[in-house]
């Protein structure tokens, strides 16, 4: 399919078309007008000479005579550029005075009648002005003819052509450039608008409010309505996801409580492992629901809370409240080495990530393990580490452990295989990195989150 012309091209061609049509026609008109006027003035000069000459015709004893002194002749013939010829012809055609050459063309004139024409005489192009003059007997007409060579006229035509041509070319070029600039300038708001629209995603659906010309406002309004609908739809999807995850929690809690009660109440020894397995399945389901929720939230495309300055130390302190009793109950030593480390973060996601990491350690490190949460600033970066003395993850399994729905090959416990993947997603969405390394003394696992330091 042929690509339609761009807006710029369209405007440009439509501006160019009238230019192409009007400039030649206008040039021609201007040229003719100026030429005819100036040539008219030159003809008038010739005519003036002819009129002056007609005053020299006199009647003496019934004879027509024209007396022109040498001085007068010089004055009549004076011109700085062209040769001037003149002649006076009696009614019967005989030469009364001047150049015989001019008498050659035969034509009749009535008294007071003018005739201007270009003539070719003896290989010379001449401009001829002729005037009919009543002379002698009533009804007789003499002719006064004046002619000059056409050097002035040719020069005039050439200069005029050049002047008009150059003016028109300059005008056209000027108009084309001005038109192009005007188009660029006029369409700039559209360019800015499209860049602004380009920057929009599900994360940023606030209405467009660029300063735009009135013509574009309906478009902006339509886009903003579209954004609004999109935001609504995206919000609805988000709410659905959140609700689904939350709704699962109440029945899972009931189930978990029942299992715990069954474990507390007298039961056969053979049922113990079954009940324990049930309990860990329920925990895993609950964790999975929670993690799918946070995974959806950590996806770059989902609407998110705003970034705020947050101290990793505060975050870890809050985690201590919930997790110390749990770790103690699981027979583990959860400790802290906290230094201030401010970052720009979405607190919900970072909290979720830290919970995931601690939960992982509590789940996998095993009874008697030491878990240490560390925050600090190193080399201009904020660091958050969760280190344990558990079995760790073999180097070959580490990359796999960071994939969604993968677990370390020897891992037991009740993780769902999403925790580390989510942690990494969250790290990346905050412009940071998440790496797995050996714990202290080559034992256990150290998960390290490196984030850009917030400007103080």
């Amino acid at each position: 399919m042929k690509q339609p012309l761009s807006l710029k091209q369209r405007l440009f061609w439509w501006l160019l078309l009238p230019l192409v049509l009007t400039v030649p026609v206008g040039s021609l008109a201007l040229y003719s007008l100026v030429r005819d006027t100036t040539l008219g003035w030159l003809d008038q000069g010739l005519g003036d000479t002819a009129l002056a000459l007609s005053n020299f015709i006199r009647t003496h004893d019934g004879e027509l005579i024209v007396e022109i002194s040498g001085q007068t002749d010089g004055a009549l013939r004076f011109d700085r550029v062209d040769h001037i010829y003149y002649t006076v012809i009696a009614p019967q055609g005989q030469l009364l005075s001047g150049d015989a050459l001019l008498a050659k063309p035969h034509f009749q004139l009535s008294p007071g009648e003018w005739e201007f024409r270009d003539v070719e005489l003896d290989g010379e192009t001449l401009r001829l002005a002729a005037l009919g003059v009543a002379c002698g007997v009533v009804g007789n007409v003499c002719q006064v003819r004046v002619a000059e060579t056409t050097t002035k006229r040719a020069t005039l035509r050439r200069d005029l052509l050049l002047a008009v041509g150059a003016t028109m070319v300059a005008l056209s070029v000027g108009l084309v450039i001005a038109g192009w600039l005007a188009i660029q300038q006029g369409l700039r708001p559209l360019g800015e608008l499209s860049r602004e629209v380009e920057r929009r995603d599900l994360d940023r659906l606030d209405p467009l409010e660029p300063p735009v010309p009135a013509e574009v406002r309906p478009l902006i309004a339509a886009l903003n309505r579209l954004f609004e609908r999109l935001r609504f739809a995206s919000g609805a999807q988000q709410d659905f996801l959140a609700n689904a995850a939350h709704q699962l929690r109440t029945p899972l809690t009931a189930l978990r409580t029942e299992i715990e009660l069954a474990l507390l109440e007298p039961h056969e020894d053979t049922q113990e492992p079954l009940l324990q397995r049930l309990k860990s399945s329920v925990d895993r389901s609950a964790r999975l629901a929670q993690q799918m929720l946070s995974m959806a939230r950590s996806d770059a495309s989902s609407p998110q809370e705003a970034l705020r300055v947050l101290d990793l130390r505060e975050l870890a302190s809050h985690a201590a409240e919930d997790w110390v009793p749990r770790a103690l109950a699981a027979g583990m030593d959860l400790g802290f080495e906290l230094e201030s480390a401010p970052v720009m973060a979405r607190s919900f996601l970072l909290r979720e990530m830290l919970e995931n990491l601690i939960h992982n350690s509590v789940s996998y490190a095993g009874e008697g393990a030491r878990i240490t949460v560390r925050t600090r600033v190193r080399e201009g970066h904020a660091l958050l580490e969760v280190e344990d003395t558990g079995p760790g993850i073999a180097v070959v399994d580490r990359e796999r452990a960071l994939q969604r729905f993968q677990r370390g090959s020897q891992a037991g416990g009740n993780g769902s295989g999403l925790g580390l993947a989510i942690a990494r997603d969250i790290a990346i969405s905050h412009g940071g990195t998440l790496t797995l390394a050996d714990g202290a003394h080559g034992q256990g696992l150290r998960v390290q989150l490196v984030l850009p330091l917030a400007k103080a």
Partner: protein
Amino acid sequence: MRILLVEDDAALAESTSRALRSQGWVVDCTARGEPVPLSLREDRYDLLILDIGLAGIDGFETLRRVRSQGSPIPVLVLTARDGVEDRVRGLESGADDYLVKPFALSELIARARALVRRSQARFSNELKMAGLRMDLDARRAWLHEEPLALSAREWEVLSFMMARIGKVIAKEQIVSASNGWDQSTTDNAVEVCISRLRAKLEPAGIQVRTVRGFGYLLEEQVPVAKA
């Protein structure tokens, strides 16, 4: 101890109240928030356990009504939501503690116990835990009804911690609560004080757990299987 449990999921209400009763507590159950303020006026309860997601008026509104009639009852909020906003909103509406579903039974019981203890201390000016009793007015303590000798510093630290049973307490919190301590020797002073307290309280079944690099946790053995 008498508890009012507001939970609209029948299965969860059933199992939770059974678990609470297993502690020897009396539990009344309701599925809706509307009658709660009246029930609290008519009967004496020690603790309100309140689910946020209720049919009819929700937990926040119920809590608001309870507080607006001036009831000081300790409230433990249960929620299926984990947003920070919910947590903040819950605590701002007057909840004393907050538990996100699904919770471990042991955690529910421990928190319920700690809440009731803290609120009783507020009214009787007496703190009790296992074999320990502290009379805040008389500034005297007994261990199994035997007078317990405590230095002024030990008294300050122990009463501060007793008011926060079951909660992790940062070392700085203890320091800032104990005014008049020499700042340069504070950390060390706290540690010395804690180790003395630990020795004195151990016989009564009270453990002062150290949270490495953070602070302490006052604990009592909860007679429930570990989660």
